[in-house]
Every structure is written in C-alpha cells, then in structure tokens.
C-alpha cells in the first residue's frame, strides 16, 4: 500500500498535483491511500509500505512554514519519494536550504546514471520557485547545476524537483514496483 501525501493548502490544487498521481496508480492497479500532511497519524506511516510526497503550486509555501509536520521523514526506514515540494521537504529535513530558483515548463535534463528507470536526456516538466540543497548523504543523478534528482546513499529516499506525473510516469510506477 502506497501512502500519497497531499501538501496542497488550497483544496482545488489536489486535482492538479495529487489526483494525476492517483490516476497513474489506479491504472496500474497499485493500491494507495491519500492523506493531507497535517492529518497523518503514526498508523498511516506504519500501514504504508512506501510513501510519495506530492508537489504543490508555485505560490503555496504552507508546507515550508509547517516543516515540523515532516520530522518523521528523518527516521523513516521505508522507501520515500518526494516530488517538487516533496523533494524540498526531504532536503529541509536533512539540513538543506532552499534557494530561489524559478523554472516553469519543459526543460531538458541529462541523467548521468539510471534513476528509477530513467536515464540519459529527458524532457521534464518543471513548476517550482525554489531548489533545495542536500548534504553528502545524498547523490545527485543529473548534470544540472541544481539538484534535480537525488537519492540518499544508504536509504531508499528519493527526490525529484520536476513533475514525473507529466512526462515520466514510469518513474512513479518504477518507484512503486521496485
């Protein structure tokens, strides 16, 4: 069972940032349940085999102001994938810092190593106003000057700054089926 975490402050943004991922999982017959980030209980974290933290909109910084809701990430031992805002959360919890960086639309990113089934040049969809730094515990997988796709060196913790639900649906499926 996959836990999808909705970090959108505005309810309408659920349709844009969470539902497309739910639809991908439904189509692949992957079981999931969704929770808003402020409503997550310990039982949810225990029940989940894997977790995805979905992204949110450009103007939504609610999750940054409430980063303490994500302290569980630091000691989480099961696979975790953070998408855009979700990646920023992982970075912040592991001591990273946010830096203003706006990218909107399609960009070409070069994956120097295989990342959840993705390799080589990829056209990815960006929608963010921040990037996030990571320490030595994490490895970056692209040639980009900012972190676009990272993995914890010892844990199954992944982060992507782009939105794989737009062009890299296989990345999401591979994470779930890994």
């Amino acid at each position: 069972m996959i836990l999808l975490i909705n970090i959108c402050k505005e309810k309408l943004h659920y349709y844009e940032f969470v539902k497309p991922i739910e639809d991908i999982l439904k189509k692949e017959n992957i079981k999931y349940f969704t929770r808003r980030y402020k409503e997550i209980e310990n039982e949810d974290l225990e029940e989940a085999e894997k977790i995805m933290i979905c992204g949110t909109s450009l103007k939504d910084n609610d999750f940054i102001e409430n980063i303490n809701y994500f302290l569980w990430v630091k000691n989480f031992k099961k696979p975790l994938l953070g998408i855009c805002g979700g990646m920023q959360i992982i970075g912040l919890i592991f001591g990273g810092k946010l830096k203003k960086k706006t990218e909107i639309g399609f960009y070409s990113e070069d994956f120097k190593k295989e990342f959840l089934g993705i390799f080589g040049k990829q056209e990815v969809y960006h929608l963010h106003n921040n990037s996030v730094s990571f320490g030595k515990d994490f490895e970056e997988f692209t040639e980009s000057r900012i972190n676009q796709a990272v993995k914890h060196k010892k844990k199954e913790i992944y982060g992507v700054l782009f939105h794989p639900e737009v062009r890299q649906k296989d990345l999401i499926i591979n994470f779930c089926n890994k």
Partner: protein
Amino acid sequence: MKLGILFSGGKDSTYAAYLARQGGNEISCLITIKSENKESFMFHIPSIEQTKKQAEVMEIPLLIARTKGEKEKELLDLEKAIEKAKKKYKIEGIVTGAVESVYQSSRIQKICDALGLKCINPLWKKNQIQLLTELIANKFEVIITGVFAEPLDEGWLGRKIDEKFIEDIKKMQEKYKISPSGEGGELESFVLNCPLFKRKLEIKSFKDFGEKNSWIREIKVE
C-alpha cells in the same frame, strides 16, 4: 478565494469554473480573449462572442480582451487582461481548463507568478473519457462547434456530448488517435447549460463553414 476564470465558453473552462465554485470559491469574473488570428496559438475559439450570453446566464462579470494573435504578443495581451481583472475584481487566482497543453499552461503559470496570483488547473492530466463522463453526470449540455482533424467532418458539428458521443469518439481515439476531449485541437465545444447557468441557452441560428476535415459551426444563442 476570489477567482477569475480564463473562459472560452467551451466544456473545459466551464467545467473548471464549476469545480472552483463547488470547492467553495467565489467566481469574481470571467476573462475571454478574442483573437483576430484564426491560427492563434492560444485562443482560437469559435463563437467567442457568445461567451457574453453565457456570462449573462451565470450572472458573472465578463472581461473581454482583444489580441491580434501574434505568437508571443498575445501573451502580453493576456497578461494585461489578467492584470486588469486583478485590479478590478480583486481576484487572488486564475482558473484554467488546461488538460494536457504544457504550452498553454506553462505560459499562464508564468503570467500568474509574475502578477502574484495563484494559477489553478483543476482538469490537469485528467483522463479525457472520465472528463466527458463527468460532464454528463453533472448535467452539462455541451455541443460540438468545431472539428479540425481527419476523419472528423461536418457531421460532428452540433453533436451533443452524451453517451453515444463518448462511444463514437472512443472509436476515433482507438483508430485515429483523436484526443477524446479535443485536447490536441481536434474539437471545439460550447456549453449551452450547466449547474452554473440560471437558465439554458437556446441556439437561435447557426452557420457552418469549412471543408474536408476542418469545420466550424458559428452559433448565436439566446
């Protein structure tokens, strides 16, 4: 939240407006861009003048902006229109009916970001058959007003989006890769009635233009 709807009068922008209202938001205005360029990259919409009638039956102010429809210049015209809506109606965000087009949605995202507005796309990446099914379930009366892809022809003009339409367009999708909701520019639609309307609009007259696999039905409603 006070929202402006980027409104074409077709099924997607109207359904996006409906979802915004269902979510407890206030629809403060509709924004329609009228392009003088029939090949407009962003706003080629048949029967755009009829959005005035739709706005009337929704009892929502309509802001119409005109553009010559030159590739990037029309984005400046859109930005001006959204800025005007922000000042006049104090909107906090813009709602679009974007489903698949990154070209359109990323440009609108940039404009909203620059103007300090939220950009909301409630139909983003939505399964297109599911979208059509939801329109019917939510009592949307929608007709086809334009077809622009082989093998669609004038026989599709005026067709109501109903179960039979979904059945037929699914076949077109399987055989000819036609996008069922017209996201690839294959179809244009017009909403005659939906839960946002105080009364149903009736077609007063229409005229069909086109040839081969490119047809437009220009309608007048009352």
